[in-house]
């Protein structure tokens, strides 16, 4: 593979290469990328007190328990901690593709939960099936407590069906809006999912008494369907394979979709819904390496942060400050805007986020300051919400420049440029960079990452 293509592959499939990986660059291939995905480690933060609480109380008792409010508060803080741990995992892991896919599925099967136990479980289910079989992933995610809560299937009961999950299952997770199915299909599918719920600990619970055993007619088929049967009928529709392929294409290849390429992908995917096979097909396709697909996608805020971290390792000493930065950039990983997920591509960019993006490297790595208010959530009390001041703040971060210096000692400025930037530079920017070569590599690198070009992957 050409150097340029390896960098492209690892950018899209794994947030970019680390400096240390440049040495072994020639040995990197698509196969090698997939070989590192064979073992998958769960991502967890330790929650001893919450675990104890769950072990000792059942649902009804717990809510009257004095310590319950404290446990809820702790859980919220743990979700914030998980947010940091997740970003760290994406930047530090060798199993880059699994993490990149996990991020993709988290923006596809969107949930929001303040319950760390449910959230963590959901997140690890995404990770476990990230490159597995789409059917298994879909069924497992539909049974996650975080999902059952978020889309109200916990309230979906025989006699008074709640359609929320059934609607989004088709509209957002498998088929796409307005395709193929009618309002009547949504109603019938909702009936098939009645009774799907979870217990207090977050384990799936098939509440038989609440399940509607009568016949349903869904997408022109009639039978006594349950949730899994509905999912199987959906998967039989070629539109489902096409819908997922298109979304993968938008996220990994180009936000301007080439319909012919998506069609090729959908054919591969429809055979057995094997996600690994689909991704191998994409990364081996000659068109993946076409000029128009290299260095032309706008990075999501998460890709941007993780990418920065891969070049210069840094730690947020206060996990809340990471949330503030994510807020300014427009993507708090643990708080998707709504069930439809974040609108991507150009939608990430406005005047304000652009200013933050360009300042980000200097703010994070060179003690720069940034203006933001520490704003609370809706549930905060008056004082907390209104105790704000418009200051230029320093972010409490420890960058590891020592490692950077050591790793870049043998690199030329050109090597560094090629590692950091994916899109080609025209003469104007080249001259600008040339003029910077008199500064040290740290400064040079920060300038590279402050270019609009760095926003592209």
């Amino acid at each position: 593979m050409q150097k340029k293509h390896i960098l492209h592959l690892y950018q899209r499939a794994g947030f970019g290469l680390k400096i240390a990986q440049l040495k072994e660059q020639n040995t990197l291939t698509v196969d090698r990328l997939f070989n590192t995905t064979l073992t998958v480690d769960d991502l967890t933060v330790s929650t001893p007190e919450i675990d104890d609480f769950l072990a000792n109380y059942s649902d009804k008792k717990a809510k009257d328990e004095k310590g319950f409010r404290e446990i809820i508060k702790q859980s919220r803080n743990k979700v914030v901690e998980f947010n940091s741990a997740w970003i760290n995992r994406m930047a530090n892991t060798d199993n880059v593709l699994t993490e990149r896919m996990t991020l993709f599925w988290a923006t596809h099967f969107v949930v929001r939960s303040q319950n760390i136990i449910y959230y963590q479980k959901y997140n690890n289910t995404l990770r476990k099936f990230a490159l597995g079989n789409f059917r298994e992933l879909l069924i497992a995610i539909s049974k996650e407590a975080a999902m059952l809560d978020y889309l109200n299937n916990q309230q979906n009961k025989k006699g008074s069906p709640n359609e929320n999950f059934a609607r989004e299952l088709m509209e957002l997770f498998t088929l796409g809006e307005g395709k193929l199915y009618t309002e009547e299909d949504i109603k019938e599918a909702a009936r098939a999912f009645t009774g799907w719920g979870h217990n207090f600990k977050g384990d799936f619970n098939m509440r038989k008494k609440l399940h509607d055993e009568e016949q349903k007619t869904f997408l022109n088929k009639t039978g006594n369907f349950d949730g899994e049967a509905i999912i199987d009928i959906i998967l039989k529709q070629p539109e489902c394979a096409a819908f997922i392929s298109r979304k993968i294409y938008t996220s990994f290849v180009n936000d301007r979709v080439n319909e012919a390429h998506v069609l090729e992908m959908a054919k591969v995917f429809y055979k057995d819904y094997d996600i690994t096979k689909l991704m191998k097909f994409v990364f081996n396709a000659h068109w993946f390496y076409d000029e128009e697909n290299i260095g032309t996608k706008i990075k999501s805020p998460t890709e941007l942060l993780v990418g920065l971290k891969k070049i210069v390792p840094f730690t947020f000493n206060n996990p809340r400050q990471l949330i503030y930065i994510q807020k300014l950039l427009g993507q708090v990983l643990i708080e998707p805007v709504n069930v439809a997920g974040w609108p991507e591509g150009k939608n990430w960019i406005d005047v304000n986020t652009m200013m933050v993006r360009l300042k980000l490297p200097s703010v994070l790595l060179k003690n720069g300051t940034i203006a933001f208010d520490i704003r609370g959530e809706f549930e905060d009390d008056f004082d907390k919400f209104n105790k704000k001041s418009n200051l230029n703040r320093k972010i409490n971060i420890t960058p590891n420049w020592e490692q950077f210096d050591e790793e870049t000692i043998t690199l030329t400025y050109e090597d560094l440029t090629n590692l950091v930037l994916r899109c080609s530079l025209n003469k104007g920017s080249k001259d600008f960079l040339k003029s910077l070569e008199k500064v040290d590599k740290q400064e040079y690198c920060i300038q590279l990452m402050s270019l609009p070009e760095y926003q592209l992957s």
Partner: protein
Amino acid sequence: MKRRDFIKNSSLASGVFLVPNFLKAFESQNDFIKNNKKLIIIQLSGGNDGLNTLVQYNNDLYYKNRAAIAHQKANLLTVNDELGFHESLKGFKNLFDDGLVSVMNDVGYPNPSRSHFRATDIWQTASSSKDYLKTGWVGRYLEKVSKTSLGAIEVDDTLSLLMKGESINGIATKDPKLFYKTTQDPYFGQVLDNYTDTHLSDHNLGYLYKTVIDAKSSAKYIFNKTKVYESKAEYPGNTFGKQLKTISEFINSGLETQLYYASLGGFDTHANQLNAQKRLLEVFSTGIHAFITDLKNTGALKDTMVLVFSEFGRRLNENNAKGTDHGAANLVFLIGDKLKSKGIYNQPANLVDLDDNGDIKYKVDFRDIYASLLQEWLDTDPSKILNGNFKTLGLV
């Protein structure tokens, strides 16, 4: 080279913002004014309890459902023989008595969402509860009418969905000087000085460059336009007061921006509501009173309309923590001196005919209010901005 020297050198090099020719086209976009009408949108975020804001003090059902948190007539600022405003709303009540306020009851939409996030999205995008729109209605106004980011300003650090269009977004700033300084940072878009037109034709990279240019020119424009004017009026020292003062200064310094958005948060009063709401409404009332009085004195009020909403109201039945839970339809206030129906616009909420959750049913669709403001105030065909046809109510 030391960092400090580096900054010094680079700021010398770009000390004067040299505008390459190709950028000039983007800098002269300030002729976007359609008319000089301003609309200020204020969200009381968290879900303000409308039933304790405008109290039905002769309604037994109100007292029955709210044993712990009901307000007695003696403490209210009475409007007529059935309604009274919360005691914190003195300044607001003065505006009301002067005929500058229209209070609309039961504003909402079918199948209301009780999630803050989703309900806020619905109000900001003007969608139904089934649809997920990626643009806000103000964003769409920018796209169709203003044609520039400068058409709408959110007085905050980040941009809400309300302000986002497909290819044009509004601007978030509450401190034009700081905003301007940021764009003068040595790390910010220095490379522009070396650029040529070819970049702008590129799909995504072009968009990024255009946005950087937009940031630079907008920040500079807002700063230069507003730096000389300072409001002499007294505003409360809290954040909300400062936001309103900033908006007043923007308007009075002649900035062409038509739409402004600010929010006052903390209304999610699930527990011990009495004290919290009392303080919040006080912040709202003193702030809005100062703002309207200021605009009246400078003569800007005749061209300004204020819309105040909350993403949902709260349940009639109080909870056992001396608070209220998320509800549905709620109050909307319009403030200005061109209102057609001054005072109480429609019947107060019906406390008997509630929905399945025990919440107030909507009678006025919030999108009808948007449609009216677009048509009657901003002189714009609402069907261009809102998805679907909504009726206009003859509000202005």
